[in-house]
């Protein structure tokens, strides 16, 4: 008995010991390069740290945050992210659902269509930016010429990236083009999870296709939709590559974003403390979004 107990003990100890060995590489890396910097940004936000400065770094309390309040570029940048969310999230989610339903209903060539719609997802954003930069050229770009052609010269005079009003919509269009295939695939998986018996019951009841979509498909896709809406929203707040490459935030900050602003303040101007304060606001926004997601998913579980 005694012997057995001790082997059991040592077995538990062996298991715990090897578990720590298994987890150690990931735990060390995550604390050094994710959780550590996260707390660093919380701390640095209350300092005036500059990367190259003869003056010693000082704790300045909430002064960075107070300055943020009167920083018009900051508000413009974060406002652009919100505009992006308000327009791109509904448009992209609807388009993704539409594509998924069409692909799902199609018997022949459905794999080909799915492949084509998904293809932009694998094209690196830097390449997407370059292609669309050329296509948006106001005088010789494909988009203006094409619009002018199909509208008999009525459309096609837009300045796109060079216009203060059109630059952000232009970025929205190419972002949707690149990203929607990803959401379509997630919707397709959601559609395939809906039990066939529900549709059969609806057919027996003589339900119209529109009715079936509204009362069966859409409610069944609720969790998928919440996931897609939230993840697209968070992605919209991470907007950087397109605006950095195509407009560098211009014209007149019309396409500046929160991440571009963090990059410019922290990396270009070396104002690490100030950039960290912007990062903290950024994290808070993402945190609130995630909490909302959790709440909605939970309430759904209680109902279902």
């Amino acid at each position, binding site marked *: 008995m005694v012997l057995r107990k001790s082997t059991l003990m040592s077995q538990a100890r062996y298991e715990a010991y090897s*578990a720590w060995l298994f987890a150690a590489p990931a735990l060390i*890396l995550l604390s050094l390069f994710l959780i550590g910097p996260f707390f660093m940004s919380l701390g640095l936000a209350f300092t005036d740290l500059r990367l190259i400065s003869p003056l010693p770094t000082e704790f300045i309390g909430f002064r960075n945050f107070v300055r943020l309040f009167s920083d018009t570029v900051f508000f413009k940048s974060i406002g652009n992210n919100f505009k992006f969310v308000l327009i791109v999230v509904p448009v992209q989610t609807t388009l993704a659902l539409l594509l998924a339903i069409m692909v799902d209903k199609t018997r022949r060539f459905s794999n080909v269509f799915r492949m084509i719609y998904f293809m932009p997802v694998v094209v690196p954003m*830097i390449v997407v930016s370059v*292609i669309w930069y050329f296509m948006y050229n106001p005088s010789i770009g494909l988009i203006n010429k094409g619009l002018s052609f199909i509208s008999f010269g009525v459309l096609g005079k837009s300045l796109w990236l060079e216009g203060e009003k059109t630059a952000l919509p232009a970025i929205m269009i190419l972002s949707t083009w690149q990203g929607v295939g990803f959401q379509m695939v997630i919707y397709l998986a959601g559609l395939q999870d809906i039990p066939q018996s529900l549709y059969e019951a609806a057919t027996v009841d003589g339900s119209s296709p529109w009715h079936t979509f509204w009362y069966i498909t859409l409610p069944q896709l609720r969790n998928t939709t919440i996931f897609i809406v939230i993840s697209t929203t968070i992605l919209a707040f991470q907007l950087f590559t397109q605006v950095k490459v195509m407009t560098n935030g211009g014209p007149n900050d019309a396409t500046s974003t929160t991440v571009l602003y*963090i990059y410019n303040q922290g990396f270009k101007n070396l104002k*690490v403390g100030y950039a960290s304060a912007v*990062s903290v606001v950024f994290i808070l926004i993402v945190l609130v979004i995630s909490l909302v997601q*959790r709440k909605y*998913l939970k309430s759904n579980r209680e109902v279902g």
Partner: protein
Amino acid sequence: MKSVRLRDSLAFRKKTSVFFRYFGMAVLGIFFLFPIVFLLVSSLKPEELVAREMSSIMAFIPRQVSLQNYFDVFHEMPFLRFMMNSIIIVGSIVSLGIIVNSMAAYAFSRLRWRGRDAILTVILASMIIPFESISIPLLLEVNRFGWIDTYFVQIIVFIAIPLYIFLFYQFFLNIPKDIETAARIDGAGNFTIFFRIVLPISKPVIATVAILSFIQQWGNFLWPLMVTRGFEVRPLPVAMQTFFGMQPRIWGDIMAFASMITIPVLILFLLFQKWFIKSVASSGIKG
């Protein structure tokens, strides 16, 4: 008679609706394809034709095919160097990431130890921290370590990823316990069990993580932009941006450069299409 006509008109209506659906899908297909075709076709055109033909239907038709733009890119810059840098960095991140994340997930899903649940909660919570929000303090940190302008700094920060730990974790939870028990009775240790039994039957989740990580890293831009100065360790996307920023812009060459970043990914995608789609589909299962 009447019922036959009714049936005919129903069949006709169904046929037209199928036709319109295919038509709509084809139009959308063109919308998703034309920028990629435009890129590849332009890269094959002589420089003087790229801009001249880019506003007409000729933008999609290579009348004169030449590889001159590609030769120019190789001639003007150390393109192969950039390509090699990208392959080294992305290859290391993907392969090390699979090992490190799956090992951690194994400890969380199959072994009992004190602190496990608390640590797992922290890791799952950290999934929502966007990399962009910690990039500045992270830069400060690696700068102190003296790691700027190395492969190492571009690899090390992207190996352990909470989302990938979570994907492995979910998969491991569903592996039946008997498989391990049998091996354990035979005297196998945890390392043997993990590398010889668990990993070999985890190919689906390994493929998922490899593909998601590859798509993400091949186009990764912000971090290499901050930590590379010269061309020695610079990956393709940052080199592309530098080239794109040079005036005057040589459009044909830029298109050739952009094509060469894209073609390897497109080939992989066409070869492993099913796996790509499966990976993305399973990344969405959450909550």
